[in-house]
């Protein structure tokens, strides 16, 4: 059952401004060319595509983003940033979105207790460190 609600664009929403401040990126530079999405290696696990992330921010629809899988799927590989013709670093925006969630107390994405079970002996140490960085306060 599809239900679509109307949204009201809010370009100056303070949460969005905060994301821009944390990431130090300028979302109005984005022309929605989609090059980030086109080259993203993690795009297959994303419910909202990278260029759509910025579009939603431009429209002030931050709640959708904070509930999305996309921000957690982002591997922070910077492929998007290195190719963006508008010099917008989306990986930083993704990081900013994640931070607004994990910095809230008790909001860790990764339960530290469960980590040993998730471990695979082939996971490089670096990945564990980055995993903590990305998912934990």
């Amino acid at each position: 059952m599809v239900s679509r609600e109307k949204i009201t664009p809010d370009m100056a929403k303070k949460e969005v401004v905060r994301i821009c401040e944390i990431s130090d990126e300028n979302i109005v530079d984005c022309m929605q060319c989609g090059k980030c999405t086109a080259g993203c290696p993690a795009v297959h696990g994303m419910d909202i595509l990278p260029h759509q992330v910025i579009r939603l921010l431009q429209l002030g629809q931050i709640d959708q983003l904070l509930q999305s899988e996309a921000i957690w799927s982002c591997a922070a590989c910077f492929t998007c940033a290195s190719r963006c013709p508008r010099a917008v670093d989306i990986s930083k925006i993704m990081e900013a979105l994640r931070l607004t969630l994990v910095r809230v107390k008790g909001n860790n994405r990764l339960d530290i207790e469960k980590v040993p079970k998730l471990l695979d002996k082939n996971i490089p140490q670096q990945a564990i460190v980055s995993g903590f960085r990305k998912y934990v306060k």
Partner: protein
Amino acid sequence: MQRVGVFICWCGTNISSTVNIDEVVAAVKNMPGVVYSKDYQYMCSEVGQNLVKDAIKEHNLTRVVVAACSPRMHESTFRKAAKAAGLNPYLLEIANIREHCSWVHKDKKAATQKAISLTKAAVAKAILNQPLIPGEVGVEQRALVIGGGIAGIQTALDIADAGYEVDLVEKTPSIGGKMAQLDKTFPTLDCSACILTPKMVDASMHDKINIYSYSEVEEVNGFVGNFEVVIKQKARSIDMEKCTGCGICLAKCPAKTALSEFEEGLSKRAAIYTPFPQAVPNVPVIDRETCTKFRTGKCGVCAKVCPTGAIDYEQKDERLNQKYGAIIVTTGYDLINLDSFGEYQYADHPDVITGLEFERLVNAAGPTAGKLVRPSDKKKPKKVVFIQCVGSRDKSERGKSYCSKICCMYTAKHAMLLRDKYPDCEAYVFYIDVRTAGKGFEEFQRRAVENYGVNYIKGMVGKIFPTGDKLKVNGVDALSGEVLEIDADMVVLASATQAKPGASDVGRMLSISTDRDNFFTEAHPKLRPVETHCAGIYLAGACQGPKDIPETVAQASAAAAKAIGILSKSKLVNNPCVSQVDESVCSGCLACTKMCPYEAITEKMVEQKVHGKIRRRRVAEVNAALCQGCGGCTVTCRPGAIDLKGFSNKQILAEVDAICQ
């Protein structure tokens, strides 16, 4: 005592919304020398100008100050008005209370105070103004066109048709430029060569046009009406008089190893070559780096086969000094280097090509004789992907922030040509936006979609993966949010245009400025689009900014008209704001002569009687026709014996004093 009239412009609300005009009017009344003041909504309008003219007559004004927009905008307008009212135009001063005041300040009180202060400075200066009478200087009735592309050819033809001599200097061995490389032209799809080559022939046959191909402008001195130019004719190694253009040498040359510049490196050419069969002049050039004779001393085949003995291995660069009244710069553009766009595999895969290479591939005279095949295996492509905005509208350090303007149209053209040749071949165009402003342009692009079945995809390509004999193009359709993969046989990149790498050097040589992207700067973006800030030097074509052919030709004719405007005069009026020497004060140290950029100052001996004794000494003398009025000499002169009319030491000091009150 001077009688100063001050005219304060509201500029609609441009000035009056930030500057309290009434306060300025009140303050002006108390300024020394001011006998009349008047404000009006649009001082530059006919009514406003009449206010100035009438007041000059009615109130016997001897000096006029107009507080309005920048003098760069309307100084000449008001000077003409003053002249019409019988006042020497140089007795008028402008106070810039718009660009330098109302437009940059928000605080009304501060802006009003500043407007008063600027007006006061203008009044103080105006009181010290002297009537100036411009001198006259002769005009060399000959034009120089730098760059032999379509812009240069059109300019040269227009000037020559008006009856003036034109020298057309082209760096490469033939005129024709980028347009000669194109196959068809949008939006009519007529053949580029068919419309260009007749013009090239016209230029070469015109008795008023001299083409200096394989030549470069090396030095430019002088000023409008009298430019002195050194042209370097590079050693062609061929006697142009003797060569008949038979082409035997080209065929017989054994060193066919160099990549053809004209064919964008898609084929090879001989060491002795004409860039393309329709080249003008149809005289080959020996590429000395490739030529076996020059490299090893052995060979000399071309000399042996030449029926007229035109080959001259000893030929040297020659320099030619010529005088011109006007110069038109038409140096064109280049495509950007794609090395930093690794994701498109341009450097690594032969089937990823630029738009210009595509032009050669579909051209009947091109390396494949018009058969559109993949460069790698010469097979017919079944799927071609076009990518727009490669490096254009790109804020990162890889690209150019501007829109290259021509890519949307030529990509539509390419896709149409492809579908026309091979109706079974699929065409995909990745775009960010499609921009088709221009007569018939939108209809043209829609034809590509509606009639030719070209698939337009709003989105970009992330990366191309060469897989087997295919190019896997990973892209996105931003509208649907679907990630795409296309098995292409060929990819055509609409790479960004850029200014010629040497443009800033050319700019320096000509004393014309370039913008941050190295395109030459026009004098005014709207009202003086083909002039430069240097009088007598004009711009046409893509050297001023990305442009298509119709625009280039329009600009070329405009620049020609401007140049003809100069050439048609037997005399030009000089800027009267030139330096002059007070001989009684000049010590004759001649420091001024050493720094003068125009060598306008010379020495002469004078005899003076001082206390009954005759003293003979040197003094400096300014040639008013050569002086351009920079005023640099005045600062070298410690005693202030040399001063600049219109910007004298006293005037500037008076301005400083007034502004500091």
